[in-house]
C-alpha cells in the first residue's frame, strides 16, 4: 500500500502542462494586433491662431513696411503687396522681406518686426492655401537651416545664435531637443505668420 502511494506521488510530480501550444496562441494574438496596428504620427503645419479681440480692443498696429500681405484668391492667384506673383516666388520674397535689416525702405525694418499676413477668399481651395502657407514656412525653415549650420544669426551685426554646436540642418537640431528644452533658434529668430481676419461680407 505505501509502495503504491509512493508511486502515484512520483507520477504526479512528473506531470507538466504542455507549453507547446502556448506559442501558437501567442502568435495568433500577435498576428491580430499586427494587422490592427497603425503606427502613424500626426504630421502637419502647426499654427497659433490670434486670440479673440475684445470688442473695445483694436488690433495692434503694424507698420506698413513691416507687413507683407499675401492674398490668395479663388483661382489660386497670389498677390504680394498688391503685386501679382507666382506661388514659387513666395519663398524668396519672404526671405528678402524678413532679411532686409532696414535696407530697402519698402521691406521690413528688422526680422523681429516682420509680419507675414496670409489672407484667403472664401472660395480659395484649401490646397492652395496650404501650398502658400508651406512656402512661407519653408522660407523661415531655410533661414533656420542657415542658423543651425553656422551658429550665426543672419544680418550685418549677426552674432552667435547661442547653440552649443553646429548642426547639418534645423531639423537635426529640432530632433535632438528634449521635450522641456527651449528651441534656441526659434526663440532668437521667431516667425510671425498671421492668418488675416476673414472679411465679414461687408
Amino acid at each position, binding site marked *: 500500500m505505501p509502495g503504491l502511494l509512493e508511486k502515484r506521488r512520483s507520477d504526479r510530480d512528473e506531470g507538466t502542462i504542455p507549453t507547446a501550444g502556448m506559442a501558437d496562441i501567442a502568435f495568433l494574438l*500577435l498576428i491580430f494586433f499586427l494587422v490592427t*496596428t497603425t503606427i502613424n504620427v500626426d504630421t502637419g503645419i502647426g499654427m497659433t491662431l490670434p*486670440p479673440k479681440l475684445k470688442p473695445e480692443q483694436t488690433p495692434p498696429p503694424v507698420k506698413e513696411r513691416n507687413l507683407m500681405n499675401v492674398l490668395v484668391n479663388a483661382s489660386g492667384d497670389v498677390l504680394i503687396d498688391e503685386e501679382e506673383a507666382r506661388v514659387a516666388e513666395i519663398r524668396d520674397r519672404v526671405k528678402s522681406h524678413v532679411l532686409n535689416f532696414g535696407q530697402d525702405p519698402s521691406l521690413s525694418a528688422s526680422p523681429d518686426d516682420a509680419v507675414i499676413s496670409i489672407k484667403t477668399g472664401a*472660395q480659395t*481651395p484649401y490646397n492652395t492655401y*496650404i501650398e502658400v502657407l508651406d512656402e512661407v514656412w*519653408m522660407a523661415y525653415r531655410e533661414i533656420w537651416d542657415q542658423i543651425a549650420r553656422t551658429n550665426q544669426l543672419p544680418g550685418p551685426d549677426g552674432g552667435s545664435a547661442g547653440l552649443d554646436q553646429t548642426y547639418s540642418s534645423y531639423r537635426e537640431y529640432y530632433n535632438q531637443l528634449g521635450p522641456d528644452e527651449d528651441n534656441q533658434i526659434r526663440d532668437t529668430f521667431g516667425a510671425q505668420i498671421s492668418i488675416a481676419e476673414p472679411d465679414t461680407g461687408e
Partner: protein
Amino acid sequence: MASQKFQRGSSSTEPEFTTASLPDIVFMLLIFFMVATVLRETDIKVRTQLPQAEALTKIDQKRLISKLHIGPLKRGENKGETAIQIDDALIENRRTIRQIMYRKLQEQPKLIVSLKVDQESEMGIVNEVQQELREANALRINYSSNREGPPPS
C-alpha cells in the same frame, strides 16, 4: 567500421531546438503591439484627402490632439455636401464648435486641434471653424498634411 558510422548517426539523442523561450519572445512582441494599437478608431463620415506640404512638424503627444474633420460627406460614389465632424459626431450647427472645444480645453489646457481638411474644401468653411476656435480660445491648431513626394530615405 561502416556499421559503427551508421550507429553514430542514429544515436538515441535527438538534436532539438529548445522552444521553451519562444512564447516569451512572442509575448514580448505581442505586448508591444498591444500597447501600440489604438483599437477604437472613430468612424469618419467625411472624406478627408489631406494636402501635401514640406514644412511639417510631428506631434508626438497623441493625448493633446483633438481631431476635427472637414470634407464632403461620404455617400457612395458621388460626393455629398461639405460637413464638419468632431470625434464621432457630425456638427450640424457650427456655433456648437465653440462649446465642444471649450469643454475639451478645460480637460486638456494644452489642446492642439488637428484640422484634417479635405484638399478640395474651400477656405470659407475653414475660416469659419477658425473663428469658432478663437471664440473657444483653442488657439493651437495644426493643419494636418502629408509629406510631399517620396519619403526621405
